[in-house]
């Protein structure tokens, strides 16, 4: 029983890595495979997938190549996903580490600020930030990190609260180490696995939220994203559903891949599981 779930886990992790690698490859080679602008008209509008040899995945209502959109969209999705997860992780780790290590009023102040962000509905907050500052890739990255750092902060805070009572941390204190050194050089390496696992989920969430923003027309108008494609295709939902389905499936697979990789990393990095194996 256990070996079956063990193999299954490794198999799903491999699948996740494979899918993610494919999306990254698409993003990296977009300009080589499709040298033109993805917004250019390349064929007759509403060509179904497989109908024309030039546009294998068909065209949308303005005759734009769906395949080109998929490749260029991967770029924006991954950029937004990874960049916002990185910013959220950095802010969350800083806030959580100080709150958890020092406790007391530092914790109170930092956690009240965190709760302020957490009690606002995430998507509404992101939407509001983009609406106020204007839609650009940078603003979207910032708005998505603004809504996702509190979860990291709370997680890291909890880990630090446990860690700072560990005997080795007391040992560092009596050895005369400074607080910053203990926080970043001694405790953080112990918490890193949890942060890495959480970050993969953050990337997936950010990609989905970016698509939702683009779908509502709050995406960066200068770049084509999967959400933009879905948004533009919604008028043809009944007669040309493939326009929505193709980027939709791409989104689904990317989010799935990130979750599978996250689970695999959790298995590999979780110290409790590792100890059980010996």
């Amino acid at each position, binding site marked *: 029983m256990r070996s079956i779930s063990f193999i299954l886990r490794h198999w799903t992790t491999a699948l996740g890595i494979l899918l993610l690698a494919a999306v990254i490859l698409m993003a990296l080679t977009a300009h080589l495979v499709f040298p033109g602008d993805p917004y250019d008209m390349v064929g007759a509008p509403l060509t179904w997938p497989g109908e024309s040899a030039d546009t294998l995945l068909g065209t949308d209502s303005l005759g734009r190549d769906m395949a080109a959109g998929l490749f260029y969209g991967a770029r924006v999705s991954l950029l937004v996903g990874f960049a916002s997860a990185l910013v959220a992780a950095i802010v969350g780790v800083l806030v959580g580490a100080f709150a958890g290590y020092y406790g007391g009023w530092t914790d109170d102040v930092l956690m009240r600020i965190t709760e302020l962000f957490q009690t606002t509905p995430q998507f509404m907050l992101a939407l509001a930030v983009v609406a106020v500052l204007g839609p650009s890739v940078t603003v979207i990255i910032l708005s998505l990190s603004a809504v996702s750092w509190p979860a990291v902060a709370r997680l890291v805070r909890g880990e630090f609260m446990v860690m700072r009572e560990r*005997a*080795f941390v007391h*040992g560092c204190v*009596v*050895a*005369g*180490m*400074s607080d910053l050194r203990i926080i970043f050089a001694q405790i953080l390496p*112990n918490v890193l696995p949890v942060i890495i696992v959480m970050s993969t989920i953050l990337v997936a969430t950010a990609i989905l939220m970016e698509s939702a923003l683009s779908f509502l027309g709050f995406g960066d108008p200068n770049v084509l994203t999967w959400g933009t494609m879905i948004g533009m295709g919604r008028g043809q939902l009944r007669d040309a559903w493939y326009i929505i389905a193709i980027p939709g499936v791409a989104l689904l697979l990317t989010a799935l891949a990130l979750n599978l990789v996250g689970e695999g990393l959790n298995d590999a990095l979780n*110290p409790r599981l590792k100890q059980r194996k010996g």
Partner: protein
Amino acid sequence: MSAPLLSIADLKVRIRGNPQARLLRGVSLSIDRGETLAVVGESGCGKSLTSLAVMGLLPDGLEKSGGVIRFDGADLPVTDNEAMRKVRGRRIGMVFQEPMAALNPVFSIGDQVAEVIHEHEAVSHAAAMARVVDLLTQVQLPEPARIIHEYPHRLSGGQRQRVVIAMALACRPDLLIADEPTTALDVTVQAQIMRLLHDLQDDMGIAILLITHNLGLVAQMADRVAVMYAGRKVEEATTRMLFAAPQHPYTRGLLAATPRPGRRRPGEPPLTEIPGVVPAITEMPSGCRFRPRCMLASDICALEDPPFVDGVACHRAVSRELVP
């Protein structure tokens, strides 16, 4: 005679904002260079609190409300965290009782011990590592050149405690505070670790403040013993004197509760316990705090806290001269 290495005079610690909750009520101790002082007593007597006060690491909510702590001829700046960081690890090392959790699981032994050296001295990593190998040899770990690359989970409890001791001694401190250093280890390993501490003391001339409730260790290690009860020192004597002629009823109770094979008189019970437990800080009795548990208590014991005179704080103490 020169001034002692560490002298604690009338140290008082209380709960912040609560003058009634006096956790330490004027503790005085002193240790000379190269000497071993054992501090014994039941849990909750303030043994560990005394050592934390010396390190400037009182838990949140407690404050030092009086007393002077002098170290190597100067006042210890126990409230100045930055100044104390230069003392901790470098001048005073400390060893705790949990070797299992005392090492950082994600770093190799070598890196961990070297980290302490780097914290206090500007040396190259190679030089620090060379010293780590020397230290591990000194604490008698086999194959130190291999062990520096190992991670803590690969070592046994006794080996980890040796690493912890190596870390505490990395910067050649003058004083080592050992807070129940062997409690979590099994008996044979306990004996090895204590022998090691003894050898290191002879080699390096460090003073050891040994905090324990194991009187067997005290007899084996200490030059002098201070007995603490409910936040104050109730008796102090040389180890030989304390075991031969304990004066305070509490000390006698502790000794009677310790197995001593071959010393039993006919008809004597093998072990006698001290009835009751150390009272909670909110329920301290009037007068002598040991009174409710003391078989010798009389009226005067309820009236005043006995002063510390001639090495003992008890109204009913048996004078040493009277002991045969």
